[in-house]
C-alpha cells in the first residue's frame, strides 16, 4: 500500500470492526488495540484471556493460524555486537518500550490469525509475567500452534500451560538459556567485534553530506 493511499484512507472500518467484535466477545480482557488503516490490526489481551481470545477470534472467522512467537522488548545489553571487548562496556539505554498496542512486561507473546474470506489479519499480543512466564496453550484452539509454542518455549523460555510436549525443537535438550532473549549473548560477536555493522564505505572523494541528504 503506497503512502498516499494510506493517507487517503481516513479510517479503516473493516479493521476497526474486528477490534469492536473482539471487544464484544471478550469484554475488558482486550486491553489495547492499534489499527494502521488499510494495513493491519494489533490487539493486546490480558494474559489470562490468551486462550479465550484465540477462541473468540476463531469464532469470528479468523481460522487461519499464521504463526505464534514472542518479542523480548528489553534493549540488548550487548548492542549490536560492535563493541570492543577489551574496552569497558558502553552505557546503554535500558528502558523497555513496547510497540503497538502497548504492554507492561518485558516479554510479549505474539500471534497472527487471518480471516480467509476477508483477507484481514490480526496480530494478537499478550503480556507474559516476568516472574512466572507462562501463558495458556493454544493447541486446543489451533492444532498448528504445537510447533510454534515449542519453538517459542525454546527460544524465549515462555511456558505454555496445557501443551503436552514442550521439547526443544532445534537445540539439544540439555542446552541452557533461551537464545532469542536479548540478554543471551551472540557469542561470535562478543569474542570478536564484527567490522561490518556499518556497511556503507565512504566514497572516494565524497564527503559527509552524501550520507546526510535524506535524513
Amino acid at each position, binding site marked *: 500500500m503506497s503512502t498516499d493511499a494510506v493517507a487517503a484512507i481516513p479510517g479503516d472500518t473493516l479493521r476497526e470492526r474486528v477490534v469492536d467484535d473482539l471487544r464484544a466477545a471478550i469484554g475488558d480482557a482486550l486491553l489495547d488495540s492499534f489499527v494502521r488503516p488499510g494495513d493491519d490490526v494489533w490487539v493486546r489481551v490480558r494474559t489470562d484471556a490468551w486462550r479465550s481470545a484465540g477462541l473468540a477470534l476463531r469464532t469470528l472467522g479468523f481460522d487461519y493460524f499464521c504463526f505464534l512467537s514472542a518479542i523480548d522488548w528489553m534493549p540488548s545489553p550487548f548492542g549490536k555486537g560492535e563493541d570492543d571487548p577489551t574496552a569497558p562496556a558502553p552505557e546503554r539505554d535500558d528502558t523497555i518500550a513496547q510497540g503497538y498496542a502497548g504492554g507492561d512486561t518485558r516479554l510479549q507473546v505474539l500471534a497472527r490469525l487471518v480471516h480467509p474470506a476477508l*483477507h484481514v489479519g490480526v496480530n494478537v499480543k499478550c503480556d507474559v509475567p516476568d516472574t512466572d512466564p507462562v501463558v495458556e496453550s493454544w493447541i486446543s484452539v489451533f492444532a498448528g500452534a504445537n510447533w510454534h509454542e515449542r519453538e517459542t518455549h525454546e527460544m524465549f523460555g515462555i511456558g505454555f500451560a496445557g501443551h503436552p510436549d514442550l521439547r526443544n525443537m532445534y537445540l539439544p535438550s540439555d542446552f541452557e538459556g533461551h537464545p532469542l532473549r536479548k540478554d543471551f549473548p551472540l557469542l561470535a560477536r562478543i569474542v570478536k567485534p564484527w567490522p561490518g555493522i556499518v556497511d556503507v564505505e565512504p566514497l572516494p572523494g565524497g564527503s559527509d553530506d552524501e550520507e546526510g541528504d*535524506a535524513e
Partner: protein
Amino acid sequence: MTSTESLIDRRQLSYIAAQAADARLNVELETEGMTLNIGPQHPATHGTLRIIARLDGEQVVWAEPSCGYMHRGYEKLTEVRTYPQVTALVNRIDWLGSFANEVPFILAAEKLMEIEAPPRAQWIRTILFELSRIANVSLFLGDLGVQLGAITPVFMAFRDREYVLNLIEGATGGRFHPNFDRIGGLKDDLPAGFVDETRVVMKKLRNFCDEMERLLFGNEIFQSRTRGIGVIPKDVAMQYGLSGANLRASGVDWDLRRDQTLPMAWNKVDWKVWTHPDGDSFARCWVRLQEVRESTRIVDQLLDAIPTGPVMAKVPRIIKVPEGEAWVSTENPLGEMGYYLVSKGDLGPFRTKIRSASFNNISIVPWVLKGVYVPDIITILASLYFILGDIDR
C-alpha cells in the same frame, strides 16, 4: 477429478486407518512395533530432516519429525545486522527460490519507511520472483519422480531449471543467492537481451510442464501412488496454517499474490489461482504443476508491459528504518513467507520473526502420517514439499 462421495470415502478410509493404528498400539498382545529412524541422512529427506516412525509391519502408528539439524539462528542474527545486510541471510532460507525470500523482508522495511519502489523495479521484482518460483517448483516436479522411483523426470527438471537459473544469473549475478533486492528498488536494471531470452525460456518451461504431465502425472502407477494418499481436509489445513499449494490443494482458494495489495505487479496481469478439491498428494503435485504454467504466463505478460524508468527510489545512503512494527508476507514457492519486523529506529531490526512456509507445512506431518505405509511417508513428504532451510531457518 473425483466426485465428492469418493473424496469422503477416502477421508474416512484414512481416518479409519489412523484409528486402527491407534488401537493396535494399545493391544498388548500384538507384536512389538519397530521404530524406524528416517534420516537425518536419508535420500528422501533432501536435507537433514529426521523422522522417527513407529511401525507395525509397514504401517506407521506414530511419526514425529525432528528438525534442527540446520538451524542457523537467522532471527538472532538479523538483530545484529543492518537492514541491507539481512537480505544476504534470508536468501538462504529457501535456497531454491532465494529471490522470493528477499522480497517480503524488503517490502516490510519499505512499509515502515513509507517508501515505494518505482514501477519498473516492482515489475522486475515480480518477474524475478516468478522466475524463482519456476526454478523452485520445476525442481520439485522432477524430485517427485525420484521419490516415487522414476529417475528420469529429475534430470529433465535439472535441465530446464538450468535455463531459468541462467536468466536469474544474467540479471542478478547470482544463480542461487541473488541478493539483488534493495530497500527502495533493485541493485541494477535488467541486462540487454533479457526480455527476449526469457520469452524463449518460458516456452521451454511450458514444454517441460507438458512433458511432466505426460510422463509422470498421466502415469497409472503415479496416480495410484498419490491419489487418496495423505488427505488433508480443509479445516485441518487451516488450523495448521498450511499455505501455498498445500492449502490450495485442499480446496481453499487462497493466494496472497491475488488477495493482497502489495506494491508488486501481480494484480496488473491476468492469471488464475488453481485449486483442487481432493487434498491428497496428487492434488498438491497437480496444483504445483499448474502453478508453474501460470507463472510462465505471468512472466510473459509482465515482459510485454514492463514500464520504463528508474529502478531505485531515492533512499538515504545509510538506511534507518523508523520505529514501528510491520508484517508483510508473500506467496513464495513453498507457501506463505512472512516477516514480522520490529524496528526501533535503528540501523538494524530490533526483532524479526521469520514465518516460513515449510515450518507450518511440516508441522502437520505427525497428523497426516498416522496409519500410512512406509512408501507413503515418502510420497506425503515429497508432496508437502519442504526445504530444510525453510523449516529450521
